[in-house]
């Protein structure tokens, strides 16, 4: 028997040789198919002229879509709007994961100024300093907007400011007046708390809401804690060396204020522990007159309670008014935040074009398009001369306050800080900690994550 001959003869082993042949053929086909797919996926010349913009929430998407045709025409580019999930937290999470993986859009917004440091330190944001310095709109920006567009660790600008949120205490003027409760500006924290007690005792409703807890996310810091810290006995959150001062008297003051609200049942607790904690107090209780004072920004009079909102308050301007946030021992302040500043992806293949798009989105007409739907105010002071802004009467006062508004400075690690504040305030809501315990919890959480070098150990 010729073993070799039989070995080579495919017919001697039915199916064996044919099968191998089929496998080799299949591998060839697969390689050709893979090559074709890869060729189709690879960048082609001309793709640089397509700029992708990340945007979320229907109001913002609508505003952007009205602006895109003009920008495309002016810059001779094609813009693709990439729709992101609506809730701010989901938007930010998706954005960060895509920035990390290198496939994020060319232009996107940074929801809050506090997040600029963390994104810039991670290397996700293109430096906009020179672009902004050469921009004719730069000097027209509110000084606070220019300041908040910079990262604290290198003093470079990373976003084009478009709109700002001006935040104060909003109260139900109609109900307070009906019950004979003073509507004068509270002089200090004690006065504000006394007003809250009067509201509780005379109306039987909740008096004061300062966002808190884990599910409110960054809002526990941005819409709650920082208002208190700014008016505390020690408002500086950073030391001269740029370290977080979490054992300061100011942090303790703020947490003690929360503690008082909770202990004296001045604030609703259950809704703050629900999955979407803003819905019941902001969208239901305040319009229904079951919560009478809350921190909020200019967006509330449009987005939360305006005529096109889910639960509009009729005759809003007569029924709702604002107080400045009083300080612990007197004084008063208006907080502002740079929201949704336009940033450029450091890994964008078309950074020059993307920067032009970002600047265009910082123009007055673009910021008014956004302000109209969202209720925030344009970051540029010259917006007041724009005819589109004349129609936004409800925003004029807030816009005028930009020159006196302030903010609490944070630095790299602000995301951790905000998560820590959410935890600390949640521990107060659940009664697991008192103010001292919550402060220690905040300190340990932040120092555990950022390292001891990022946090002042002593109460200085």
């Amino acid at each position, binding site marked *: 028997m010729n073993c070799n001959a039989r070995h080579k003869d495919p017919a001697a082993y039915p199916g064996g040789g044919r099968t191998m042949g089929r496998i080799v053929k299949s591998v060839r086909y697969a390689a050709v198919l893979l090559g074709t797919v890869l060729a189709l996926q690879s960048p082609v010349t001309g793709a640089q002229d397509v700029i992708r913009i990340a945007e979320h929430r229907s109001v913002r998407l609508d505003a952007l879509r009205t602006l895109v045709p003009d920008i495309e025409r002016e810059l001779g580019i094609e813009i693709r709007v990439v729709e992101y999930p609506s809730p701010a937290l989901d938007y930010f999470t998706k954005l960060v994961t895509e920035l990390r993986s290198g496939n994020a859009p060319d232009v996107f917004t940074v929801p809050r100024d506090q997040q600029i440091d963390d994104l810039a*330190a991670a290397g996700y944001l293109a430096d906009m300093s020179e672009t902004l310095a050469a921009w004719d709109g730069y000097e027209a920006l509110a000084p606070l907007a220019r300041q908040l567009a910079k990262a604290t660790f290198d003093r470079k600008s990373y976003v084009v400011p478009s709109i700002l949120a001006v935040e104060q205490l909003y109260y139900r003027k109609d109900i307070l007046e009906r019950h004979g409760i003073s509507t004068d500006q509270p002089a200090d924290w004690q006065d504000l708390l006394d007003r809250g007690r009067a509201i509780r005792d005379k109306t039987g409703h909740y008096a004061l809401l300062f966002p808190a807890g884990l599910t409110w996310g960054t809002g526990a810091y941005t819409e709650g804690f920082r208002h208190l810290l700014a008016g505390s006995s020690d408002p500086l959150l950073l030391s001269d060396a740029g370290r977080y001062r979490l054992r300061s008297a100011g942090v303790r003051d703020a947490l003690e204020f929360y503690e008082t609200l909770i202990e004296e049942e001045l604030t609703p607790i*259950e809704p703050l522990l629900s999955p979407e904690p803003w819905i019941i107090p902001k969208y239901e209780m305040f319009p229904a007159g079951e919560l009478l004072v809350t921190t909020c920004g200019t967006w509330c009079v449009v987005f939360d309670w305006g005529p096109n909102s889910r639960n509009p308050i009729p005759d809003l301007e007569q029924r709702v008014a604002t107080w400045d946030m009083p300080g612990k021992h007197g004084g008063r302040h208006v907080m502002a935040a740079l929201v949704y500043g336009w940033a450029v992806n450091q890994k964008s293949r078309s950074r020059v074009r993307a920067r032009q798009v970002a600047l265009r989105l910082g123009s007055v007409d673009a910021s008014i398009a956004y302000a109209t739907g969202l209720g925030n105010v344009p970051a540029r002071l010259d917006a007041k001369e724009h005819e589109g802004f004349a129609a936004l009467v409800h925003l004029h006062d807030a816009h005028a306050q930009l020159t006196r508004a302030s903010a609490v400075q944070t630095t790299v690690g602000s995301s951790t800080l905000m998560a820590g504040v959410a935890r600390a305030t949640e521990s107060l809501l659940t009664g697991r900690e008192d103010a001292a315990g919550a402060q220690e919890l905040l300190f340990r959480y932040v120092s555990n994550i950022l390292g001891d070098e990022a946090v002042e150990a002593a109460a200085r």
Partner: protein
Amino acid sequence: MVGMTLSYEARKQLYLRLLMAPALLLMAGLIVFPAFYAIALSLTNEALLGFAARDSSFVGLRNFTRLFTDPLFWNSLKVTLIFVIGSAVIGQFAFGLLSALCLRRPIRFKAIFNSIIVLPNAVPEMVVGFIWISMYATGEYGTLNRIVGWFGVEPQQWLFSFPLMAIIIVNTWRGIAFAMILLTSGLESIPKDVYEAAKVDGATDRQIFFRITLPMLMPTIFLYMFVSTVTTFAIFGLVYTLSRGGPANSTEIIGIYIYNQSFTAFQLGYGAAVAVVSLVISMLIGVFYVRALKVKI
């Protein structure tokens, strides 16, 4: 001849290995590599934000030290344990067995009953979450509140007042079908003549169930327990949709805790450390079922 036989065997082996290669490659790429990558990640301060996102560094066991001193981690383990025992070990198993026993009898509209039980398992878990959000909705328009309202009960905030029980009920509802299908196949495998012999010997229904059905169903029960415990341990979407782990971490199962650490606090290294501990616990559960109970799978 020997050489030729080996050659044939070699070809056959090569052929079989080639057939297995895609599956093995997928497992290596999607299961084994990520597991080892997670272990490596857990030893760093890797983050999605801040300087650590650009230049992460080796931190040894710091993440694990932090984890074991974090009360929220222990809370999530406790919540997960209650969730797994409540929904998979008790709820799904009890109702699955009951359904399997009932539907073994000749009843009218059997196919319809089968479909009703299987349907929840066919719905994606996010959709299930949204359906039950509507069921548990607060105020008088929530479906459950309307039902209890017929009996004069005031509207409740179900996901606030009974959060853990609420998610256990949803997961039980969703998982009955899997238990029923597996236990039905187990019941079908028990020889009929054993029952006939028992009846001839005068055994009661109760005796038949406890002395024949249950013991002979044990391998299937353990198989079910193994699969359902491990899969329930890894649940994420259903609970995230319903409660996001709240209120006050009362439904923060381990999957949610990992997500929150990795993608809300953006601490990938720490999140990976929790995932590694979760993996070890899952493996221990597997070893417990497979080895300690001497069940051959």
